[in-house]
C-alpha cells in the first residue's frame, strides 16, 4: 500500500521535474543567445542585409500598426456582439444561438485557414493587396471569439441589481449600459483585449499571405509590413547566417508576450477581488 503511494509520488515529482527541465532549457537557450550582444540599438535601427545585421525598428512599427488595425476593428465588434448576446436577447433566440454557435466554430479555426481566407477576401477580393490593413483585418477575425467570450463573462458577472435599480430610476437602456454595466465589466473586457493582443502578436501563419514580407518602414496602412513573428520565421528559415538576429528577435517577442501575460494575470486578480467585494 505505502509502496504504491511512494511510487506514485515519485512519478508525479519526476514528471513535474521533466516538464520544468524541458521548458527551462528552452527558455534558457532563447534568453542566453538572445541577450548575447543584445543592445537597445537593435530595436532602434533598420535591418541590413536581409536582417543578418542591423535591427528591427521597421518591423516593430509594422507589428504595432497591424495590432492597431486589428484592435480598432475587433474591439467595437466584439463589444457590441457580446452586449447583444448577453443583454439584448434571450438564450433561446434563434439569431443568438446561431451567433453563439458560429463564434464557437470560429474560435477553433486554424490560423492558416484565416490566412487563406484573408488572402482570398481582403487581399484579392477587396483589393487591399499585401498590406498592413489586410493583415490587421485577418487578425481581427481571429481574435474576435476570445474577446467576445471574455466580454460576455464580464457582463454576466455584473449583479442584476445594477440594471434593475437603474431601470427603477428610469434611466434608459443605453445609459445603464454605458454608465453601469460596462464600467462594472471593464476589467474582464480589458483581460480579453490583452489576451487578444497576445494572440495577435504570436501569429505568423495568417500574416504571411496577408501583410507580407516587406521589411521596410511602412508609409501608410496600404503598404506591406513584416510582423515580428514573420521576421523570426524568415530569418530562421530563409536567411543563412540569420540565427544571431533571429535569437534577438525571438527574445524580444518572448519578453513582449511575457509582459502581456503578466498584465493579464494581474488584471484577472484585481477583477476577482473586486467581484468578491461586490458580493
Amino acid at each position, binding site marked *: 500500500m505505502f509502496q504504491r503511494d511512494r511510487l506514485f509520488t515519485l512519478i508525479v515529482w519526476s514528471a513535474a521535474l521533466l516538464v520544468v527541465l524541458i521548458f527551462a532549457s528552452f527558455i534558457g537557450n532563447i534568453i542566453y543567445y538572445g541577450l548575447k550582444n543584445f543592445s537597445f540599438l537593435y530595436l532602434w535601427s533598420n535591418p541590413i542585409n536581409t536582417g543578418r545585421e542591423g535591427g528591427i525598428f521597421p518591423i516593430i512599427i509594422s507589428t*504595432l*500598426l497591424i495590432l492597431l488595425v486589428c484592435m480598432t476593428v475587433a474591439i467595437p465588434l466584439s463589444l457590441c456582439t457580446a452586449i447583444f448576446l448577453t443583454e439584448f436577447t434571450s438564450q433561446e433566440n434563434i439569431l443568438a444561438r446561431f451567433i453563439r454557435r458560429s463564434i464557437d466554430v470560429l474560435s477553433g479555426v486554424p490560423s492558416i485557414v484565416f490566412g487563406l481566407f484573408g488572402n482570398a477576401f481582403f487581399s484579392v477580393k477587396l483589393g487591399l493587396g499585401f498590406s498592413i490593413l489586410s493583415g490587421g483585418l485577418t487578425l481581427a477575425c481571429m481574435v474576435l471569439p476570445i474577446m467576445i467570450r471574455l466580454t460576455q463573462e464580464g457582463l454576466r458577472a455584473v449583479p442584476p441589481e445594477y440594471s434593475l435599480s437603474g431601470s427603477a430610476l428610469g434611466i434608459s437602456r443605453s445609459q445603464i449600459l454605458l454608465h453601469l454595466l460596462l464600467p462594472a465589466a471593464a476589467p474582464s473586457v480589458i483581460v480579453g483585449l490583452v489576451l487578444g493582443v497576445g494572440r495577435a502578436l504570436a501569429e505568423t501563419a495568417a500574416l504571411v499571405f496577408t501583410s507580407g*514580407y*516587406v521589411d*521596410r518602414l511602412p508609409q501608410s496602412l496600404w*503598404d506591406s509590413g513584416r510582423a515580428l513573428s514573420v521576421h523570426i520565421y524568415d530569418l530562421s528559415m530563409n536567411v*543563412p547566417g540569420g540565427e544571431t538576429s533571429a535569437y534577438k528577435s525571438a527574445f524580444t517577442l518572448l519578453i513582449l508576450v511575457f509582459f502581456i501575460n503578466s498584465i493579464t494575470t494581474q488584471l484577472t486578480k484585481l477583477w476577482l477581488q473586486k467581484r468578491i467585494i461586490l458580493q
Partner: protein
Amino acid sequence: MIKFLYVLLVWMPFSQLANAADVPQKLVITGSSTVAPLISEIAKAFEASNQGVRIDVQSGGSSRGISDARQSMSDIGMISRDLKPEENDLKGFAIAKDGICVILHKNNPITKLEDSQIVDIYTGKIKNWQELGGKDAPITVVNKAEGRSTLELFVNYFKLKNSDIKPHVIIGDNEQGVKTVAGNANAIGYVSIGTAEYDSAQGVAIKLLPIGGTSASIENVKNGKFPLSRNLLLVTTTEPNGLKKKFIEFARSKEVIGIVKQQYLVPITK
C-alpha cells in the same frame, strides 16, 4: 511610455495618410525568390534617384509572379524562366541570366558527380555517400516544393518527373535550400548559382558542384557553356507605361550592371 505609444500609434498612421496623398507613386513587385534579392537592390537604387517613389518587393515563386500580375495583386511579376506558350497574355522583359547548380556541404569529400549519379541520388537508387566514394553516411536529398521554376528546370534537364524524386527534405526559397545543406553535412540540394555563389562568398558552408563537367560559375553561365541556365524576367499584363516603364527600363539599363554582378548574376543589356 504610454504617452509615447499613444503618439506613435495614433499620430503616425494619420500623418502618413496625409503624406500618402502627395506620393501615390508605388510599385508592387512579386514573384520568384531567385529574382527578388536582385530586384530589391535595384529598387533601392531606383528609389534613391526618384524621390517619393516606393517599391515593395515580395518573394514567392515564379508562379506567384505570374498569378499576382494577372490578378492585379502586383504591378510587375518576377519569374526565373522564359514565358510559356500559354502565358502569351503577358509581356516579358529579360533582366539577367542565372544558372542552377547542385550544392553539397563544404566538408563533403565528393567533388564531382556524373549526371547519372545525380539522377540515381534523386530517385533513391543511391542512398549512401559510400557508394560514391564518400564517407559512410546516408544521403539527405533536398528537393524544391511544387511550383518552383528551379524545380521545373532541374527535372527537365535530368529528364526526371517530380513524382520519381525521393526527397528527405522539401524547401521553398533558394536561401532555405542553402541553409538546409549548410546545416547538414550529408545533404545534397540544388539552387540558383547566383544565390549559391553569393552565400559561399559570405562564408556559408556549402560548395558548388560542376554539371556535365562544366564548373558552376557565373562566368560559365555568361559564356553559355553551363548547361543549366535560364533567363530572369520581369512580366507585366499590359504594355508598361509611366512608372512601370521607367522602372523596367532602369532594371535593363547599364546603370544596374554593378548591382547585377554583386548578386552573382549575369547582366543582360540592350
